[in-house]
């Protein structure tokens, strides 16, 4: 009995993290057919936001409740970042999902390196460059003959701004030394410590349910309900659903699809930020954080099918349960009658082999349901 409970809870806790990570991805993918490879990095940003909020509130009376503030902050930060990404890159690539995939992968590399090397000097340098370059082009754009000189003007301007920014940040580094050159986070990773009331766990018999896992399950449930409510009960949710179902028809009916896209992308990214808060309670917060979850999140989306939240929920639960049961060899005792089955399950009862098994099962599953558990009804959408 305890064993069964343990399996269910173990699977549920893995599944809830997966679902939280996949939720934002699923919405964005359902709406735009865009795979956001930088989703994991938005989670990482969320985790780092948690770290910042935690440290900011360390000595204040709110320090035990920082996690709630972190949730809000992470959502906002990641959502804003998502909005920027959508406005500057993704927007130009609609209808080309494969290119989007590559571009967002590039963004994910940049974000990883950004977390490692961001310092005041770095920020000052980039800021100066942006100020000079965009300010300069704004001024130049006033000139009547801008169209003719545009190419050269921008080249010269870019070069000049880069040079000035470089010199400026170098001078900054020379004068203030450590105060500005020290990386904010560094390569080493940072510590996010759960507040006191989240440490330890709820004992049930000789098993203990970790509070952090419980918290994540509750958080996931809250997010799912929140999204459900948003999609089904608000005007913008209605618009998002409409565009998901038929983009051109919605556009004809006067729905601002561009705004819907941007909003959805920001929402999905914000959810990734929330997921980042959750995973910071479980694992490491470093520049690699996002990479650990991203592919699993894809699998949830693919298995669940596009366009229905319920698909992702069931898929995440199933994948979580299967990986837990295989990884901890929970079936081992039940099949001890057959030596072959026993050794078979033991072979797969390691973290990496459990993953092999789960992914192989996913590929097999898609043989029977190529469009996922809950495919969209009606004509197939060409990707």
């Amino acid at each position: 009995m305890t064993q069964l409970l343990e399996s269910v809870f173990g699977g549920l806790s893995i599944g809830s993290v997966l679902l939280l990570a996949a939720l934002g991805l699923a919405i964005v993918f359902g709406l735009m057919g865009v795979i956001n490879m930088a989703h994991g990095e938005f989670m990482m940003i969320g985790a780092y936001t948690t770290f910042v909020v935690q440290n900011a509130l360390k000595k204040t009376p709110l320090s035990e409740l920082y996690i709630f503030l972190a949730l809000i902050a992470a959502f906002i930060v990641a959502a804003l970042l998502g909005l920027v990404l959508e406005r500057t890159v993704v927007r130009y690539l609609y209808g080309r999902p494969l290119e989007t995939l590559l571009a967002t992968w590039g963004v994910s590399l940049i974000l990883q390196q950004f977390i490692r090397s961001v310092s005041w000097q770095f920020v000052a340098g980039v800021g100066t460059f942006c100020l000079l370059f965009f300010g300069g082009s704004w001024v130049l754009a006033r000139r009547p003959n801008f169209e003719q000189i545009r190419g050269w003007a921008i080249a010269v301007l870019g070069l000049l701004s880069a040079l000035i920014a470089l010199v400026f940040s170098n001078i900054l580094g020379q004068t203030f030394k450590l105060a500005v050159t020290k990386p904010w986070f560094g390569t080493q990773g940072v510590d996010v410590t759960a507040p006191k009331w989240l440490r330890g766990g709820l004992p049930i018999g000789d098993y203990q349910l970790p509070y952090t896992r419980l918290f994540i399950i509750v958080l996931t449930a809250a997010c799912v309900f929140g999204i459900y409510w948003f999609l089904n009960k608000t005007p913008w949710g209605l618009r998002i659903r409409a565009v998901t179902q038929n983009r051109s028809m919605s556009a004809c009916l006067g729905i601002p699809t561009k705004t819907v896209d941007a909003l959805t992308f920001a929402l999905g990214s914000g959810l990734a930020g929330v997921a980042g808060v959750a995973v910071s309670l479980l694992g490491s917060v470093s520049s690699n954080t996002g990479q650990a979850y991203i592919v699993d999140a894809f699998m949830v989306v693919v298995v669940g099918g596009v366009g229905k939240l319920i698909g992702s929920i069931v898929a995440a639960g199933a994948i979580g349960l299967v990986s837990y049961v295989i990884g901890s060899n929970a079936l081992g005792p039940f099949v001890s009658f057959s030596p072959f089955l026993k050794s078979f399950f033991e072979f797969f009862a390691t973290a990496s082999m459990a993953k092999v098994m789960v992914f192989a099962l996913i590929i097999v599953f898609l043989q029977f349901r190529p469009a996922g558990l809950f495919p969209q009804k009606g004509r197939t959408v060409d990707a």
Partner: protein
Amino acid sequence: MAQFGRREFIILSSTAAGSVLLKACAPSTTTGGTASPEASPAATTAAASGDVIKVGILHSLSGTMAISEKSVVDAEQLAIEEINEAGGVLGKKIEAIVEDGASDWPTFNEKAKKLIDQDKVATIFGCWTSASRKAVLPTFESKNHMLWYPVQYEGQECSKNIFYTGAAPNQQIEPSVDWLLKKYKGQPFFLVGSDYVFPRTANTIIKAQLAAKGGKVVGEDYIPLGGTEVTPIISKIKAAMPNGGIIYNSLNGDSNVAFFKQLQGAGMGPDKYPSMSVSIAEEEVRAIGVEYLKGHYAAWNYFQTVENPVNEKFVAAFKKKYGEDRVVNDPMEAAYIMVYLWKQAVEKAKTADDLEKVRVAALGQKIDAPEGPGVTMENNHHISKYVRIGEVRDDGLFEIVYATDKPVKPIPWNQFVKETKGYSCDWSDPAKGGKYKMT
């Protein structure tokens, strides 16, 4: 569809031009146009031509191992800077060429080749994981070059081309197991590790040692390097040791964080499940969070809390260069002293280029290290080290609960493991070499 054209292209080209500028500002890596570029076994290199001596620094600055290796680079650069400020080596400044191994073993190998053949460095300081060391080993041996390796490792290796300044198993793993056996009499052991050479070999040694001394191993499990899904392992530990026991932990990198966070969540604290870690030092404690580690043990040769004047100076210098909130740890100390040991060897040999001479001169070099006085490079290319066990305390540093009062001599070939029992290593005697049968 949006029009992409000249404008964007020009932005692109200007960034490219910008990077060229960056390059111009970066410390120039002059490639010596020497006559024999072919990869001839380089007993002599052109590293010391001019008024600088070039050395290579080869660690992961990206990928899963960057979390640990970046700070080792910091320590090496600190030592080089100090040496340069004190007048350099043989009157020449040291110029460090840093390469990123990217946590990828083939990349390590490629970059090692590049440092040796292209940059003609006098020596290379580098590597952390045993997998990366094993990957570059053939390159160093075939080119007869020199690597200084600063991390505790599993032993069972004794290359002429490597100087090991981290602990051999008898300077870290074996004493810590002995200590555990004494302190927690009759408790079972569970071995957890990342899935690569070091933990596998370390656990083989531990199992042999426990078998010889009457300890009991109830389980052994591995997580892939960089993996963070630890829930199944924790269930297994719980199932194997329901009444508590010792966790011997050789996880590396990010996995540690997930492991300790979830260990605590499962209610398995250090009172019932004390753990001994061999890859968690001050840096890692900070990344994991003190709250999760308080009361757990780690075995090292050096802790920041070691009390002696050399250490005080080292810690102060490091904090001055990298910030007050930084900490130092064992591999960083080993990395720091290995640069000094190399410098001493070069000064004794009066050349940095003739690696054969430097190698001979390095043997017997003594240094007053932060870990304690009288640390010596032995004839088997390993150094004698103090052995310490620390308990994580509130401020994230270690309370030293056990320490030897003098350095322990290194034994690279393990004496508990059947295959290597009775073997030893001595590079001072050409007849003996890397592996010979002791009589």
